[in-house]
C-alpha cells in the first residue's frame, strides 16, 4: 500500500487499517499521533548508537523498542531524496525475558512538509500468522530442494554403480560359466569313452564352478549395495571402533596393534568399520606364516585422518598394486582361496564413497610386509 508522506495521511492510514498500536515510549502521544512517531532528522544520528538526541533532550531514555532503528539512520535520512520511497522493516521484536515479544512492523517514509522522517510502528496479529505460514512454506520448499539435491546425487551414484556392475558381470562371471559349459560339452561328447569316475569328476567340477559363481554373485550383490545404503553421519569415537574390531577379530594367531592418535569425528561409521575390518582380514588371510603382527595406525592431518594398516606378510609385487583393487582379483589361487577377490574392491569403493583415497606400498624384493594407507576425510558432505 503506497503511503502518502504526510502526518495526516499516515495517521489516517494507521486508523483505517485497524492495526493495533505498538507504543514506542511516551513520545507518540506527545505528538498527538496515535502510533506515529515523529523523528526529526537531527534525532537520528548520534556519535554512539542506542540513544536518540531528541529523547535525551526530553529527559527520556530511548526504550528498547527503538533498537531496530539503530544502524538505519543514514538509510532513513536518504529518504529525503526519494520522497516516494518507503523502508519496510518487518517482523522485528525486542526480546523480553520470560515472554514472547510482539513482532513489530516499521515503515519509514519522508515527510516533506516537516522535512523529516516518519516511522510507523505497529503490530498486527494477522500479519504474524501470515508470516508464520510463509515461514512454514519457505521451510517446506527448502526441505524439498534439499531432498531433490540428495536424490540427484544418489541417482548419479546409482548410474555409476550400474555401469561398473554391468562391466564386471559381463567380464568376470563369464569365466566360471565358460568352465561349466566346457565340462558339460566334454561329458556330452564322449559319454561312452569316459569312465564313471571321470564323469563323476566332471560333475563335481561343474558343481564347484556353480558354487564359485554363486559366491561371486553374492559378493557382487554386496559390492553393488555398498555406497547405496548411505547412512547418516554420526559421531564416531574411532579409537573405540578400532578396539571393537580388534576384540571381535577371530584369528588369534594374528596380533593387532593399535597405534597413533584416533580422534572422534562425524563420519559414516559402517563404511569406516568395513574398510578397517576388511583390510585387517585381508592382511591375516594372505599371511604366509602361522602368526604375524598387523599394525593399525592413525594420525590426524589437517583435512583427513591418515590411517595405515601394515602387516609383516609376504608383500605384494608392484605389478599387482593396481589390480588388487579390482573386483574378483585375488593373488591367491582361485580354486583354493577362501576369498572371492572382492574384499579390497569393496574397501576401495567404501573409501571413495566417503570421498577418501587408498594406496598400497609394498616391495617384497626388499623386505616383507604391505602397508595400505587411507586418507579418510575428516569432514564428509553427503
Amino acid at each position, binding site marked *: 500500500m503506497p503511503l502518502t508522506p504526510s502526518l495526516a495521511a499516515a495517521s489516517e492510514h494507521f486508523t483505517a487499517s485497524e492495526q493495533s498500536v505498538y507504543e514506542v515510549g511516551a513520545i507518540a502521544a506527545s505528538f498527538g499521533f496515535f502510533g506515529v512517531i515523529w523523528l526529526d532528522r537531527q534525532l537520528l544520528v548520534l556519535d*554512539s*548508537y542506542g540513544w536518540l538526541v531528541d529523547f535525551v533532550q526530553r529527559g527520556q531514555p530511548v526504550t528498547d523498542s527503538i533498537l531496530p532503528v539503530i*544502524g538505519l539512520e543514514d538509510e532513513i535520512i536518504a529518504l529525503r531524496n526519494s520522497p516516494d520511497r518507503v523502508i*519496510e522493516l*518487518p517482523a*522485528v521484536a525486542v*526480546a523480553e525475558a520470560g515472554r514472547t515479544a510482539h513482532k513489530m512492523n516499521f515503515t519509514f517514509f519522508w515527510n516533506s512538509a516537516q522535512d523529516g522522517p516518519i516511522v510507523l510502528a505497529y503490530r498486527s496479529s494477522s500479519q504474524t500468522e501470515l508470516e508464520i505460514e510463509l515461514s512454514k512454506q519457505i521451510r517446506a520448499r*527448502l526441505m524439498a530442494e534439499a531432498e531433490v539435491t540428495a536424490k540427484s546425487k544418489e541417482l548419479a551414484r546409482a548410474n555409476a554403480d550400474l555401469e561398473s556392475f554391468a562391466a564386471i558381470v559381463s567380464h568376470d562371471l563369464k569365466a566360471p560359466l565358460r568352465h561349466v559349459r566346457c565340462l558339460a560339452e566334454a561329458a556330452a561328447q564322449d559319454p561312452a569313452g569316459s569312465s564313471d569316475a571321470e564323469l563323476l569328476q566332471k560333475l563335481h567340477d561343474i558343481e564347484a564352478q556353480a558354487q564359485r559363481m554363486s559366491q561371486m554373485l553374492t559378493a557382487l550383490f554386496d559390492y553393488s549395495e555398498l555406497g547405496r545404503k548411505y547412512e547418516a553421519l554420526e559421531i564416531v569415537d574411532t579409537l573405540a571402533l578400532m578396539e571393537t574390531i580388534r576384540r571381535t577379530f577371530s584369528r588369534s594367531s594374528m596380533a593387532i596393534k593399535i597405534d597413533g592418535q584416533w580422534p*572422534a569425528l562425524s563420519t559414516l561409521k559402517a563404511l569406516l568399520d568395513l574398510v578397517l575390518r576388511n583390510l585387517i582380514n585381508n592382511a591375516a588371510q594372505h599371511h604366509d606364516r602361522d602368526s604375524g603382527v598387523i599394525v593399525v595406525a592413525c594420525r590426524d592431518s*589437517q583435512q583427513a585422518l591418515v590411517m595405515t594398516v601394515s602387516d609383516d606378510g609376504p608383500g605384494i609385487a608392484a605389478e599387482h598394486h593396481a589390480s588388487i583393487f579390482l573386483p574378483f582379483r585375488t593373488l591367491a589361487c582361485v580354486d583354493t582361496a577362501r576369498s572371492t577377490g572382492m574384499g579390497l574392491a569393496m574397501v576401495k569403493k567404501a573409501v571413495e564413497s566417503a570421498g577418501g583415497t587408498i594406496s598400497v606400498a609394498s616391495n617384497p624384493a626388499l623386505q616383507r610386509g604391505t602397508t595400505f594407507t587411507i586418507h579418510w576425510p575428516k569432514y564428509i558432505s553427503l
Partner: protein
Amino acid sequence: MMSRKVMLLGEIGVGKSSLARRLVFDKFEFDYKPTIGVDIYRYEVPDSPGRPRMTLIVWDTDGNFGEAMFKHIYMKEAAGALIIGDMSRPPTLETMSKLGQGFSEKFPGRHIGYIVNKTDLVQNPDMLALPPFLTRPGASLARTSAKTGSHVAEAFIHAADAIARRSV
C-alpha cells in the same frame, strides 16, 4: 557508551535464539520456537581494560533467510556477525562457510565469529573434527552450549573485543 549491531546467522534450529537468551537472560528454554523475522537483544558487555564500554545490539535472525539475508535491510550497519552451527548436525557447519563468505563479501573488514553450538550433545567436543575453514589459523571459533551456558558469554565478549579493535 558505544553500541554496535551484531547479527546472529545460521541455519534453522542451530540455537541462535537460545544463545541470545542464555547471554542476555541467562535462561534456556527446552521448547523449540522458530524465530520469525528478527528478535533483538541488548547485551551490556562487561568492561574490559583497553576496550570502550560497549552495548551489543544482537540481531537474532530467522534461519529461513539463509544467504538472502545479505541483501536485506536488516543487515544495514552490522558491525559484525556471529555465524552459528550445530555440532551434532554437520550440514549446518557447512552452511556456516557460505554464510561467512557472504558476510565478508558484503561487509569486508567486519568481524566474523564462528560458533559451534550444542557441545552438550557431544562427548569430548574439543576432540571432534570440524571443517577446515573453522580451524584455519586466524579464524575466530567458539564451542558453546546454550543449554549449559558453556563459553556463551566468552564468544560474545570476544566479538565485542574484535569489533572494538577494528573500530567499526
